[in-house]
């Protein structure tokens, strides 16, 4: 990559990082860069967001003590 492009990329990342801080997304630069790359490749941003949410959510209960109770599967509804 030529330095020009690299600089543009870096600046863009900075801006996006700043914006994401404003929006309190809690994402760090690296994760953000991955997400941007994935978006650029054409993935659905909604889906990506959902992934982020789910995995985070999944991560958090592992912290708290009541996580285990919740991770226990409640009765599953029947699927006709």
């Amino acid at each position: 990559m030529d330095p020009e492009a690299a600089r543009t990329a870096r600046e863009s990342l900075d801006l996006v990082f700043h914006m994401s801080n404003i929006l309190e997304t809690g994402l760090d630069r690296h994760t953000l860069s991955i997400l941007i790359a994935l978006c650029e490749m054409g993935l659905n941003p909604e889906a990506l967001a959902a992934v982020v949410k789910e995995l985070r959510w999944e991560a958090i209960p592992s912290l708290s003590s009541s996580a285990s109770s919740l991770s226990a599967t409640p009765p599953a509804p029947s699927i006709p």
Partner: protein
Amino acid sequence: MEDDDQKVLDLIKELVHRLLYTSQHPIPSPSASSNPNSSSSSPTTHQYQQALRYALRILSSRMTPSIAPDDAAMAESIKRRLATQGKSSEALTFTDLYSKFSSKTGPGSVKNKWGVLYLLKTISDDRKLLKNQSISRVSNGFFDPASVGGLPALFDSELSDRVSVVNEHYKNLSDLDDKHFSHNLGGSSDNLKKLRGLNSFGKVEKKWGDCGFNENFEKLRVSGEGSRGFKGRENVGKGWSGGVLMVSKDPENIRHLAYKEFAALLREENEVSEEALVRDVLYACQGIDGNYVKFDEKADGYMLPELVKVSRATHVMVRKLCELGWLFRKVKGYISESMERFPAEDVGTVGQAFCAALQDELSEYYKLLAVLEGQAMNPIPLVSESVTSGNYLSLRRLSVWFAEPMVKMRLMAVLVDSCKTLKGGAMAGAIHMQAQHGDPLVKQFMKRLLRRVCSPLFEMVRSWVLEGELEDIFAEFFVLSQPVKAESLWREGYSLHSAMLPSFISSSLAQRILRTGKSINFLRVCCEDRGWADAAAEAANAAGTTTGRGNLGYGETDALESLVAEAAKRIDKHLLDVMYNRYKFKEHCLAIKRYLLLGQGDFVQYLMDIVGPELSEPANTISSFKLAGLLESAIRSSNAQYDDPDVLDRLRVKMMPHNTGDRGWDVFSLEYDARVPLNTVFTESVMARYLRIFNFLWKLRRVEHALIGAWKTMKPNCVTSRFLDKLPNAVKLQLVLTSRRCQVLWDEMNHFVANLQYYIMFEVLEISWSNFLKEMEIAKDLDDLLLAHEKYLCSIVEKSLLGERSQTLNTTLFVLFDLILRFRSHADRLYEGIHELQSRSTETSLSSRDKTKSRANKNDKLSEPGLWLGEGRKALTQRAGEFLRNIGKDLDAIANEYTSVFDGFISQLPVQQHIDLKFLMFRLDFTEFYSHLQSKTGAKLLP
């Protein structure tokens, strides 16, 4: 392709890794793709694998985003959300960043900016949700369930349900080929559909209330969510960061879906959008037909035709709003109609002013409409978006805006209706009546309008009152002028036109206005006086306005009144000064009294003396020149000669039109020439009345004169006494008797005439004159003067029995006069006869004394002397006796007649009700001789 896919997969793996790890450890671990267990402790491989698979599942399930890719709109939405959360500074920063970000183009920049933004937004939303959830889970009892809608636990369980479902799905589908899925991101649609279908089915099941909830509860949940949504927003606004269980975007987009449904419903129901309707209504309110809203001739209003498919409420609303358009049409129609008629000079200045005022109001209205039209361009937000106070215009907002213009327009339409056929002062009066309203808004409006409308009128009043100018081309002023000769200028030149009198000018004020202007014109035309201009300027100064234009206005009726009062006062005073001093009004009145009303006794006497014999001739033989000469000599020989020559100039002899058989006495009269300006007072009719009085007085004088003349011959003298001696006794007795009877009769008549004369001269004339003088002193203007003079004349006429109601008395009086004159001729005859006899007897003392005369006729001349000479004394006696007998009979006849008539006259005097004749009666019947006589005879003698 494979490469790309691999890259994607790698990235995803790394992402998952990071997410799992970094949530625990802030230290980012190296992105080893398939090495999850590098340095961390808790994330197990299984977990990692699970997570990865789950991630892939999610990624493959949603291929298309649910909203349109528009990065500007996205940025806008983010900004708005930040602003509503109260983080306005951050919103500004964000805007700044975004603008920089979007300006980055070329290699190395992010192409899918929208995607990035959407991603950030979604993550931040979800983050908040996570935070809220976590806090609530930690401290569940903290919040009153009711305050959060009462269903927090439900939500949790729901979430957990949802998660479990997904997990379940995941478990059920885990036996499906991972790789197949993971390599098939762009992949086979039916599998994806199946997956999606299952997912959505799960959602649907969720939505429609499995887990034992019924529909109502579901709705409640949704609404509870909504209410919680509001609360959340409020609370967030207050600065709580995720205090209450709130989401602004529910996970399954339930609210979003509901709104979409609502929007679809609206669109389906209304064929026309609300914005188009609003624009059409705005057009209608300017009198223009819009695309949908048209003017319906039959229904006489702007409305949507029935065919247009909108809800009934909208129809009604549009109809209501278009009332303004109907009113506008009416007002505009009137204005344009009037403007067309301007050149035809049909509409007066007041009408023009009215149109101008209306147009001003309409321009205010246009301004409002322009502002509203600007706002109407903004799209009307649906209920789904957050409530802003943005400048959009819906039908409801329009109805609020139109409230005040509707009132004003209604007023204007009412005014237009009431003024359609009116002009000038009448129009101003009608508008004024409408302005009597309690509402201050209406009052203000009407006041403004009336000020404009009445300014031409007030201007006319001002110029009339201060300059006497009447510039009234369109006949709008309430003072009308007619072209008349100078002498009737005062009485008939100007009049009030009450139809054009506006109601805020009272009629007494109008009278004063009329009089003031009339006085100025009178002064200018008749008196050739210029001094009134000073008076007018003084008046204007005193009233605080100037003689210039445009200082008075409606609502300043006090100012107008004071101006008029001042002007009237000064100009009237000036006019009276001119009348009295320059034209010597008083002197002329006095002169008229002295000459026409026979006040100057010596002059009258002398005139009578010299004119008398002339007047006995038949009328057509008398020349007026001769009479004029006689008049001159009469003047010169009496005190009248010392009078003002101007006055004497005006005195003339007038011969009235005569018939054959008239004597001079009947046609003779004096006249007084009153020139301009005095002939406003002494008009033709007034002079005719003076003439009538003069005639009566002249006749009376004549009678008096006749009686006096008779006395001259009747008084005892040596001639008669000597004659008496020479007569035989019989004749003597007869003579004495006759002469006595004559004298008695004369006395009666004289008594009557003298007293009547006194009554007329003093009781009637002098008293009326003194009253008139008094009134002249206090007269303030010419109208007063005219009235006073009128009163004076009337009283004279009435009291001297010349009025209409005294006709019978009048005729009686004239009968009496005739009798008196006849008596005079008899008396003359008698004494003439006596003298004749006497002279005969002395003449022919030597010869026979038969100087008798036979007097069968009045005009009998003496018979030839020859007859006389032949007879002797006996014949003379016989003749004398016969003569005396005849005379006696005549006298008796006259006496009887006279008595009867006179009694009748007397008896009628107390019965008169319109004049008070008791003084006359008192004098005439002073000793009650007549009434005594009457009661004795007991008969009411007819006149």
